[in-house]
């Protein structure tokens, strides 16, 4: 009557591997998604820097030169004209970022009090990936001429 056992049966191995796998699966997924997240954050950071650059250069203009309208990525290129006028864009960001700009007037009593500026930058979610994410910045610019 020898009750002692030293070895592990295959059943046990398979069972414990299964449990381990069950625990490890979400863990590994987290790891890989964490990686992705960091990559996404880097991309977001670049997109954010580019959006801020575009936003600031528009806000630095005198109020009348901020022409309302919707501007597609094709129109927003470094050295390109802003709203056809004398003002040019100045962009230093990566070529794989797509900027779009929307400027709307905010009126009260027929006076333009603010312009609402929305800058959207589309960036790839991972290196050489096709999926695009969007980063948006919105703000108001006040009419200092009133």
């Amino acid at each position, binding site marked *: 009557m020898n009750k002692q056992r030293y070895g592990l049966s295959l059943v046990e191995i398979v069972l414990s591997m299964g449990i381990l796998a069950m625990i490890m699966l979400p*863990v590994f997924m987290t790891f890989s998604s*964490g990686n992705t*997240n960091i990559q996404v954050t880097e991309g977001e950071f670049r997109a*954010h820097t580019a959006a801020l650059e575009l936003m600031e250069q528009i806000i630095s203009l005198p109020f009348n030169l901020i022409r309302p309208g919707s501007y597609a990525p094709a129109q927003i290129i470094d050295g390109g004209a802003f709203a056809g006028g004398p003002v040019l864009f100045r962009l230093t960001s990566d070529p794989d970022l797509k900027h779009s700009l929307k400027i709307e007037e*905010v009126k009260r009593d027929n006076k333009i009090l603010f312009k*609402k500026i929305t800058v959207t930058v589309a960036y790839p979610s991972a290196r050489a990936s096709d999926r695009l994410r969007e980063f948006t910045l919105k*703000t108001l610019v*006040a009419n200092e001429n*009133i």
Partner: protein
Amino acid sequence: MSVKNQSEKIAAGSRGFAIMIALVIGTVLLVLAVSLYSFVGHQHSGMQTIVNGEVAHFLAEAGINSSIGTVRASIARNLSGGATEKELTGLLLKPGEFTDTCINNLLDASWNRDLEAFAREVDKDASIRVDVWLRDFESSETDPAVWDDPVARNGFLVIESTGGYKSSQRKIAIRRRVKVCSTAPGVLSKFTMYVSDAARRSPDGFNLIRNDYRGMITDGPRPLILYNHPTPDSPIEPGNIADVARDEKQADVWKHRGWLWLGGRGIRLNLCSGAGDLGEIFHFYDVSNPNVFSPVKFTTPADSLPVAFSGPLQLPWDKSNESIRQVSYTFGHSFILDGFHDRSSRKESEAMYEGNILSTGEKNHYSSKSSILHLFGDARRGYQSRTRVFGVVSAAFIRFANLEVKPEESDAAALFAAANPPPLYLLRSVSGDDYDTSVDIEEVGRRSVGGPLLKAGMLFKSYDEYAQLMSRVVEMPYSETYNSMQDVCDAKTGRTFPSSTVAMKADSDEVTLQRDQHIFFKGRPSADSVIQLLEGRVQFEVETINDFWDRYLNQQGELELNAVVRIKNPRGLDMQMPAVGRPQPMMVRGGGIIILEAGNLVLRGISCSAADQALTVVVRGGGSVSFASTQPNQVNLIAPEAELAYGSKFDMLGTLCVGSLYADHRFQGGVVRFRTGQDPILPGYDRFYKVFVDPKDSYWNE
């Protein structure tokens, strides 16, 4: 069956071991994963926070740019609006500690509703609001040795825009300096006149002038006449006789009058009074008919006299004990001044002694002497001086007390009236030891006019009563003065002219100015520390005098100062107020303080548009202050290094502070009156506080 049981048992025994290992490994890896996830998560949210902060900054910027115009206009409206809108000013003028206050509700802050709506249009988590605050106020004048003002303070008006986006907030602020101070010159606003060196370095230095009480003289400098309270004939802010009369009843009325500072050295001062119809009240009596005899005297009010004076006394008609007739006499009491009235027809010229008391020889010897300063007040014998004078004062002529005797019966009255000169009954100076009730009161000159035989005991119950009215002028709390006429009455031989007798010496140069519980000032008044105080209030600086006029004269040529301004005047040009070519007097619509760093000052007439405006002009550096016109000037002059130069006869309402008084025959004299409204111990002083808001904003910044 047993094999299965066995394997089950075996399986049961060892299954826990493997699972445990698996679980342990799994937990370790889980912990690793969680930490990585949180790290990345922080990255992500960290990024988000930075982005939110930037959007919040843009929103704050939009907020401040859009509403700054409206906010500024609203502040300007509140500060300059009518009485009901002056809540901002009222808030700033409250004495004591000032805590940071948000004043949106005072400014009708409608802009925040709109800003909220605009922010919502951007994003439901966005918010913009603009708040106006009064911040970082500190009391600026807290030293009672210089000036302790509970209201004076400096701080900032802050316009703050807060942009919020999700959980981040950014603030942008614009600040403007705010200064609150008084336009009255500290401790000097209690003085009618402050002279740094009235004796011009010589205690016996005074100027011989031949004058009458109106200051009409033929040669010598004209007198500078100082009133320690407003008078009815003042061209600006005239005094009310009823008020002055009421004040007379108080024993410490001198506390409410203007004071004098004479530089701390010996100075000869002539104390005199006005003419008598208004009794004890000082009034500058205008002699329109030179042929009517009106002595320069003033009468003690009946209710201040002892009981015996209230009704008539039956007394012998003759000045001898064998008089057979008894006449009823009523008695009064008055003071008469030496040397200020000429009852001859030549009133315009040399003043002479009352009643021809002096012989010609004596007159030639003593003549009439007075210093350049004539203090008109109520230096009544037996009562406190109405004017506090700091310094060592030697008086040349004081007064003597006259018992007014009026017979009730008409023939006796006619006899008195016909006597020339009219009889004068002096109350002689005696000391307590020499007094007894049988002291004779005689008519001066001992003429028999049919007057009464009077013994002191008939009118006075005790020496104290007698002393109260006798001819020794007691300027309390100072020393006794010299009564020259008493010598005449006593027929004293070898009279000495009282050239160096000290009439008054201030027991101390210390002053305490206090209202309710608050002490404004305690110490020795000093013009230099007042100048430092006013320099500390300076809000704005201009380069030249022309720049000053350009900035502060309005369209109508009125001065709208409402500020404390320093004029640098590097070329040392003279400043004329009003400027040459402008109408006189210059109207001051908004009072303030002007500090002229260099150059002389010439005044040609200044008038304040309302009683709550005051203009103070400080002239630094030596030089001169002069008056080029007889137009009245409602101004305070602080020029402790400058000289009051000759010019035209002037009229001033306010405080005059100069270094010295120049006196030669060209000096035309003038009148300075104390402006009671500026007295710090009266609540009216609070009207002179002004709130100054710097028109320049600081840059906005976070």
